[in-house]
């Protein structure tokens, strides 16, 4: 029997090595801000419990299976042994205790994540509206009166309050190294606090499936010092072009675009949290019609979009998008 179980043991050992060596490389376990850190701590706390449970179950299984395997001069057979109040009470109570032990920090974290991080509670959070449109992200800074597409700049050590909404499909705003995600939905506004404690560029993305362009529905988050942020904001306000309604309507078309910067925001004329129909209306105004993906028309449309993407990537690599 031991021989038969060997693959299991070897495998378990391999996996354990895998896990211990890999831990620090995994971005969720390597957060760069207090929100992500709180979640990492909760995750690690639960992992210890789970490893303990696995250990108990596996040890017990191995012991029982080995000891009571059918063989010559088998001892201890008791076919009518059908229960034990003591044992059963034990394994009702222990899981209850474990669940309580897990519930308390979970509930605490759930509540604390609703507001700005503890350490920076007294600072006024920077408010950024994040709007998802298939398949791009529009970020509006109402206070600075600027707008960016597919990237954002944030000051470090200061809470950022994201107000999330969507112009069409339901998306999920996620910057794994800064903290967990939240949905962005048309006709709704959800709020998410994040904060970066280290300067750097973090990858953010939509993680809720939104159709064909979902995979590349991403953005960059640049965390910088307060001074640099203010400098960037005022320069943008001064240098970047204004966002026109026509331009914004074009953004409503499904597809990817490069990073863009504007010195005004779309919040002046539409709030998708209040007007979920805006994007569809804009598409209609522009004469856009979604094609059947398998029809000739659909395939031509797709080819066109792919070519546009390629052009975009080329222009990107020549560095003529915006300057960070």
């Amino acid at each position, binding site marked *: 029997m031991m021989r038969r179980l060997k693959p299991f043991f070897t495998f378990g050992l391999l996996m354990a090595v895998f896990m211990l060596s890999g831990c620090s490389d995994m971005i969720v376990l390597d957060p760069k801000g207090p929100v992500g850190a709180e979640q990492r701590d909760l995750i690690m706390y639960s992992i210890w419990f789970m490893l303990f449970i696995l250990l108990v179950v596996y040890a017990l299984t191995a012991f029982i299976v080995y000891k009571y395997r059918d063989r010559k001069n088998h001892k201890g057979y008791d076919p009518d042994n059908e229960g034990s109040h003591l044992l059963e009470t034990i394994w009702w109570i222990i899981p209850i205790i474990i669940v309580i032990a897990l519930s308390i920090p979970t509930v605490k974290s759930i509540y604390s994540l609703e507001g700005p991080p503890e350490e920076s509670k007294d600072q006024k959070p920077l408010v950024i509206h994040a709007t998802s449109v298939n398949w791009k992200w529009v970020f509006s800074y109402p206070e600075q009166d600027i707008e960016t597409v597919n990237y954002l700049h944030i000051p470090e050590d200061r809470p950022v309050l994201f107000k999330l909404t969507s112009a069409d499909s339901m998306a999920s705003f996620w910057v794994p190294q800064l903290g967990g995600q939240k949905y962005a939905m048309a006709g709704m506004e959800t709020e998410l606090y994040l904060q970066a404690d280290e300067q750097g560029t973090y990858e953010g993305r939509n993680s809720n499936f939104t159709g064909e362009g979902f995979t590349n529905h991403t953005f960059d988050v640049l965390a910088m010092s307060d001074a640099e942020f203010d400098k960037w904001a005022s320069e943008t306000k001064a240098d970047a072009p204004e966002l026109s309604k026509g331009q914004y309507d074009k953004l409503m078309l499904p597809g990817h675009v490069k990073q863009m910067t504007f010195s005004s925001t779309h919040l002046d004329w539409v709030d998708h949290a209040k007007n979920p129909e805006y994007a569809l209306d804009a598409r209609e105004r522009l004469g856009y019609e979604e094609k059947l*993906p398998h029809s000739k028309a659909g395939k031509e449309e797709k080819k066109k979009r792919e070519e546009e993407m390629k052009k975009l990537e080329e222009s990107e690599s020549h560095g003529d998008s915006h300057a960070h």
Partner: protein
Amino acid sequence: MKWDEFFVTGDPMIYGADVSIVLTMVGILFYLTKYKKWKWLWDEWLTTVDHKKLGIMYIVSAVLMLFRGGVDALLMRTQLAVPEAKFLDSQHYNEIFTTHGTIMIIFMAMPFLIGLINVVVPLQIGARDVAYPYLNAVSFWTFFIGAMLFNISFVIGGSPSAGWTSYMPLASNELSPGPGQNYYLLGLQIAGIGTLLTGINFLVTILKMRAPGMTLFRMPMFTWSSLVTMVIIIFAFPILTVALALMTFDRLFGSHFFTLQGAGMDMLWANLFWLWGHPEVYIVILPAFGMFSEIISTFSRKTLFGYKAMIWSMLLIAGYSFLVWVHHFFTMGSGALVNSVFSITTMAIGIPTGVKIFNWLFTMYRGKIQFTTPMLWSLGFIVNFVIGGVTGVMLAMAAADYQYHNTYFLVSHFHYVLIAGTVFACFAGLIYWYPKMFGYKLNERIGKWVFWVFTIGFNVCFFPQYFLGLDGMPRRVYTYSEESGWGPLNMVSTIGGFMMGIAFLILVYNMYYSFRYAKRETTGDAWDGRTLEWSTPTAMPPFYNFAKIPEVTGLDHFWRQKQAGKVEKLKAEDIKPIHMPSNSGVPFIMASFFFVAGFGMVFDWMWMAIAGIIGVFATLFYRSFEYDDGYYVSVEEVIETEKISK
């Protein structure tokens, strides 16, 4: 509609599929005609109301769907094996994961289990049939037709691509135009009718048709789990029916329940979907629990440990299954109180589940464990399912779930639960009851190969995905960059996926091999079993199951009789004429009309849809004027079948 919108064109893989579908059809037609099998097919299978045959048809369909869903899975894993692969494009990948998820849950796991329930439960409770045999046939054929309707989407009109969850507004006309999403709505709707009917049918069967003496607390565990499952079905499926109908109105008739326009509420869909969807997960896991209970007890040669606790934990799980649906969208911003409540209810499900695990372990304690293949699958279940279970508890912790949600951590978790729970149970149950269905066992040596290759492949495939999830890899992406660093683990995962594919092929080979070479069973008790299904004298029970209905005096009645050396021999004078229902072609024809109606609605051809619906009502009408009360099997025929010498 133009031709290029009707047939899916331009993809060599699809052309390959077209050709193979046509060839298979021609092959089947040729075979049936050449060997004059048409009449046999109609009389023995298409019109049957015998629960065992319906069960076998369910299982055969489910195995075919496992193949289809498995090929989809391997296509996805191939695309994900290396960064920036060009094997599938985005649209294609999206269609594949949508059909994979839908087929695996709705058209593979559930029918497989319902198939085994069909074969086994009437036998386990000592009944000759189910409560409504005709309805049972309707259930099967509506499931089958729903599955076929869903399946042809990839060659005719294009598959759905909004995920098996079909979140609105993505699944609306504006963002997912065309027939694909309609296939999803109609395929599930038609199959759902069958499932709901099964729920009612087996609830009544188990409550009303038990052999004398079999009280509720003397029922075998598999029957218990089936009973609880049927209750869940009856409460959950109407929600799905309504939700699908509302979305169908949105797509076909311009209503605005879930759309962006007209004050539609997309979150309402998510709520309705998971209000059905979470209980659905338990519909496919509870029968599995029941099966493992039977198998572990049989091959430990011991009574199930904590029988009553097993039942109570199952009832608790069933109740809880309706109270946790919000854990699928903790990130929807429902507020701290709501998330806390649903975190705790979800974690609480872990308690009765844990109790069951310990009861299984202690069923083996002081037993005499035999490592047959069904037992190996059950042990494999325990070892692997706990990984799915503990990660489920991790996901239940809402604050942490904000980081796991929509990532490969989740993908890994639900495969650990669904494969190590449901699929292992399907294999275990199939092998265990195979001799009941076909009169011989599957080869044990080949079976063990299947087990080891599959189980190792399964872990190689899915364990690395926990780490991919923690490294930020989202689910449903069709590719990823080299810099992400996700390449190596994905490659490992793909290798594991192919190992499972190979194991499936060995399983199919085993069926062929055993059909050719396995020793035929001579008694009905192939494994030295404990429950009534093993008490029939012939290897395969005759169509009326029991010549004489057994009388039950306790739990594991048959086993105790055997222990006491008091198994009753069937005597000719005990036999009375047996009443049985007649076969009927109506369920098959009715389901065919459902297909016509469904196909018409998929393409928005209302004339066709109406014609189909009229056909459905015509068959209902016909049936309600059919005065057929079945017939009696004569004593002579029973004596002949049971080989009793006078």
